[in-house]
């Protein structure tokens, strides 16, 4: 078997709130291995730290202990201690993060938002736009909206554009934070189709999903977080 895409060892996270002189514990001792094409579902009750774990893996949150070994083209790199610039480079190239919230920018058209990751990856403009159109269509965004600015779209439409943008490029690792929330049934099916296709292409995924049944056939592993402690990995 090939090397794991991600190998998490003894990962810990807490938050220090200085003005309250308070330390808020999130989790500790988290460890798992994720191979190409595997799907890990994070489980646990509300507030147990599923999103926190995803953000810690993405380095939006600073890990407080342990290792996040990522199998980059240049060799294994520990995301827990890697330089910011490298984390940024890996985010552009290898690691995707899908949330329910779109960061819309004024005066950037939907199609441009979706084509942007492709442009950053060096695609020619026309090709990138074609590809963007394909995915906007797949997620059910109406053609007349492609050139419009998503700042004024409804939550559901924004989310579709967000997903198209996040999934347009097959990355090596995809972090999914409740991507199906606020999606209509058609878009949800398109999302699951796309995730299935990406999985077949070898994209490893870690997800938090509200409705487990949506993605039941994708799941390889489950990790249940409990308050104060993490649980075992069930294969």
């Amino acid at each position, binding site marked *: 078997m090939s090397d794991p895409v991600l190998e998490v060892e003894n990962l810990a996270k807490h*938050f*220090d*709130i*200085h*003005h309250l*002189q*308070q*330390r808020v514990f999130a989790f500790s001792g988290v460890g798992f291995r994720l191979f190409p094409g595997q799907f890990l579902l994070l489980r646990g009750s509300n507030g147990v730290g599923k999103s926190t774990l995803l*953000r810690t893996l993405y*380095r*939006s*949150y*600073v890990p407080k202990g342990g290792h996040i070994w990522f199998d*980059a083209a*240049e060799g294994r*790199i520990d995301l827990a*201690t*890697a*330089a*910011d*610039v*490298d*984390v*940024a*480079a*890996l985010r552009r190239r290898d690691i995707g993060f899908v949330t329910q919230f779109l960061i819309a*920018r*004024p*005066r*950037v058209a939907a199609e441009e938002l979706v084509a*942007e990751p492709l*442009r950053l990856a060096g695609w020619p403009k026309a090709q990138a736009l074609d590809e963007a159109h394909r995915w906007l269509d797949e997620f059910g965004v109406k053609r007349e909206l492609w050139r419009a600015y998503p700042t004024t779209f409804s939550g559901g439409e924004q989310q579709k554009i967000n997903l198209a943008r996040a999934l347009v490029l097959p990355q090596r690792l995809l972090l999914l934070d409740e991507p199906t929330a606020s999606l209509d049934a058609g878009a949800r099916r398109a999302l699951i189709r796309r995730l299935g296709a990406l999985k077949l292409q070898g994209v490893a995924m870690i997800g938090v999903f509200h409705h487990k049944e949506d993605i039941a056939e994708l799941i390889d592993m489950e990790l249940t977080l409990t308050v104060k402690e993490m649980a075992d990995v069930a294969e």
Partner: protein
Amino acid sequence: MSLIEAPSFKRDLDAPKLNRTQPILTMHGISHRFGDVRALQDVDVTVYAGEVLGIVGESGSGKSTLLRMMNLEEKPDQGDYRLAIPGATANLFALDRFARRMLRARHIGIVYQNPHLGLLMRNSSSGNVAERLLISGERRFSALRSRGRQALDASEFPTERMDAPPIELSGGMQQRVQLAKAIALEPALLLLDEPTTGLDVSVQALVLDTLKRLQRERAITMVLVSHDLGVIRTMADRVMVMRKGRVVEEGLADQIFQDPQHPYTQSLVHAKL
């Protein structure tokens, strides 16, 4: 007794890196005093190609002094400054005035908060851009016109007004002229000193949008100084937090805003959100 301790921050310059990331700008050990005031204390900065580094801090934190040093307007008491541009291998602070001026004109663009600092208010807007091109040795009038028009167009300045003097323009338009002048020679480094402070919020958004677009389309390396966290958040890939002449924290923009580590950064982020 404190349950938690304030983290001390010092960049680890030898941290392992992917081999393809190369810094455009490296500043090391910058210290400077104004009389008894320690304006900068042992500051290290690294800016990588194509990224936007945001520098935040209150007035007097040393952020603008640092930016002036990046623009070679001022020399620190101590420190080393290198830019990855052809022919510049030595510490740039050691260069003579003429060499510094030429380097600044060719490779560094700057947009000031106050357009009076960056523009000749009574010359035409296109002339302000042309001055930059003239310094670089452009002597064809037709080329001055076309290259000036291109730069203004890239800054989303209405080119039919390209010959109006900045003094007749609105604040937002004046910033666009500054920007056009700054990018006319495709600099290795674009410095932005509070570029949208003092503009109406709607105008501010449009100017930031132009900057974003330029960054996206041309991958210009930028250093953005602002006390406005909203601006930094919209623009920056990485953020450096300064206080009293020191860097107290540095990190990816989302990390700084979502999980600030230093007490000062926490108070700054919470005060703004």
